[in-house]
């Protein structure tokens, strides 16, 4: 029975995990420090106590974690594995790209790998270059995977459940700056929806701004500021970067005639390029060239003042939107 609770983002994730473990006896939850300690961000708190050995700590062995998830999924479990930082997935990337993504296709469905990888990414003040990357483009290029970036508390709950219920491997990319940044009303216990689907976060007529991940908050801030100047930006949260909900994006761009894509990941080779290219290919007439906002070519420096100079700020986003509308 659905109910509404006032939860932090971390608690919303926790609630989704609790529900999955309760409703799906085949669900397992594991990763480094997720069991007894309840996670380095406290996200899995209480679950070990409630569900016993189905929730457990692993050695610092990402290949064993992800490969273990693939094998357990093939054998009928529904593993939810945590990779503490998306950056760390690169020590075991093979298990996602060469292993998980192939299972169903090569066996024509005789085998499948219904696993969920929870991770989190992005920069936070003082984080070093190896703990700051936004890597969704690497995952999104891989057919066989699904990739989402829940940004609202409700999505933290909903998208994770959709991922766990999905019969294929799904990467859920959270963001540590969101975990404890305030509470929101979250509807729990509703229907688990199929994966996919963008969401309009702010309607507007002048320009379509597609974004995803924690940067969305800066995009909304920029949009609010621009409203004072009479610019009404439609802010859309892609939520899923594989599959991209291109139809919803195109419908908006057809209305506004302008496209800005903003993400925290590096611009070059980022998913923003995919979006712009897909819109361009669709032949939707634009009133001005599309604009991408992302992190320029640099590594992410630790000093907050330096990082702020590369990670897109609300100002930079607002400028890009203004440039697009005034073009």
């Amino acid at each position, binding site marked *: 029975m659905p109910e509404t609770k006032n939860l932090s983002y971390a608690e919303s994730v926790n609630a989704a995990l609790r529900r999955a473990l309760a409703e799906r006896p085949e669900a397992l939850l594991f990763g480094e420090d997720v069991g007894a300690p309840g996670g380095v961000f406290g996200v899995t708190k209480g679950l070990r106590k409630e569900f016993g050995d189905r929730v457990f700590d692993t050695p610092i062995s990402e290949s064993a974690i992800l490969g273990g998830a693939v094998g357990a999924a093939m054998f009928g479990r529904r593993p939810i594995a945590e990779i503490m930082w998306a950056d760390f997935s690169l020590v075991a990337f093979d*298990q996602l790209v060469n292993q998980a993504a192939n299972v169903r296709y090569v*066996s024509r469905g005789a085998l499948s790998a219904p696993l969920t990888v929870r991770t989190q990414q992005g920069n936070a003040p003082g984080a070093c270059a190896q703990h700051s990357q936004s890597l969704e483009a690497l995952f999104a290029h891989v057919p066989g995977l699904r990739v989402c970036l829940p940004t609202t508390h409700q999505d933290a709950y909903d998208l994770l459940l959709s991922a766990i219920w999905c019969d294929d491997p799904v990467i859920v990319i959270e963001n540590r700056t969101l975990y404890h940044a305030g509470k929101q009303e979250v509807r729990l216990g509703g229907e688990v929806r199929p994966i996919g689907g963008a969401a309009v976060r702010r309607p507007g007529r002048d320009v379509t701004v597609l974004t995803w991940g924690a940067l969305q908050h800066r995009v909304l801030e920029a949009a609010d500021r621009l409203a004072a100047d009479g610019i009404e930006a439609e802010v859309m949260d892609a939520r899923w970067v594989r599959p991209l909900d291109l139809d919803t994006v195109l419908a908006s761009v057809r209305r506004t005639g302008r496209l800005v894509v903003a993400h925290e990941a590096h611009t070059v080779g980022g998913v923003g390029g995919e979006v712009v290219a897909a819109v361009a290919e669709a032949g939707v007439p634009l009133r001005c060239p599309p604009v991408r906002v992302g992190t320029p070519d640099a590594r992410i420096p630790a000093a907050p003042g330096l990082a702020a100079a590369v990670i897109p700020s609300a100002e930079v986003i607002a400028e890009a939107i203004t440039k697009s509308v005034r073009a």
Partner: protein
Amino acid sequence: MPETAALLAHLESMRRIRSFEEEVTRLRASGDIVGSVHLCNGQEAIYTGACAALDLTRDAVFPTYRGHGWTLACGAPPRALFAELLGRATGINGGRGGSAYLTAPEYGMYGENSIVGAGAPIAAGAALAATFDGSGRVALAAFGDGAMNQGAVHEAMNFAAVRSLPVIFLVENNHYSELTPIADMVRVDRLFKRASAYGFPGARIDGNDPEAVRQAVAEAVRRARSGAGPVLLEAMTQRIVGHYIGDAQHYRPAGDLDAALAAEPIGRLTRELLALGVAQSELDELTARVDREIADASARALADPLADPSTVLEHLYA
């Protein structure tokens, strides 16, 4: 002393694998099969012995690209396997897997793996599942000597150890990794010794004796099912062919191949059976029967229709 019947069963299984690989060699030469093919000639005793010790209605093997022998020993039909290598619609994976990445889960063969070492954590994961479902299932990860130097194998072994997972790590030590001798790539070439670092038993076994392999794997299975955790078995063998079809094996020192041929398991078991009093004619009949079966399977597979390109986008997702 195992019964003659059991030995004859081993011989038949090994002969089936050998005949299959010999036919594959012909099909590759004729161009019917294309691409890289890794034969397992000389290593048949491992597959035959291990599969005899497993309960393939529930247990599972996770081999490498050198997996035709495993797949046949698991009981997969030769025709569907030929068809797979030939890119036929009737292939065991409809031609999607090919020689190096095929899978036959309905026979307990949970997938070759073409990434060296990657199957070890996957097998550990399957074993992990088995600790939750009460099935008593055991997973067997097979890989080469060279794979022992891959990070994923190390992680899988420690993970399996600390969770006491019902997984058997079986090294097919054929002395070479592609074109490079394992002896040049490790300081300690008794690879089974690595198990002690993780706290579980390791042993070297005669990988050219199917009965020795069966016994060692049976004991490992018993241990695994009892909850005692993993075992590392290092089965000593030799391939009597190249790493892949076309490998001229210039890297093998003089005499190496001859010694391997003299020790290969089919000839050896044949000699043993003759010494046990089995008639040459009975063995000849066995060989002829298996060869016919394989020739027939190949012919049928060749006559099967090619995989239909219009299906190529199916099954990426559920």
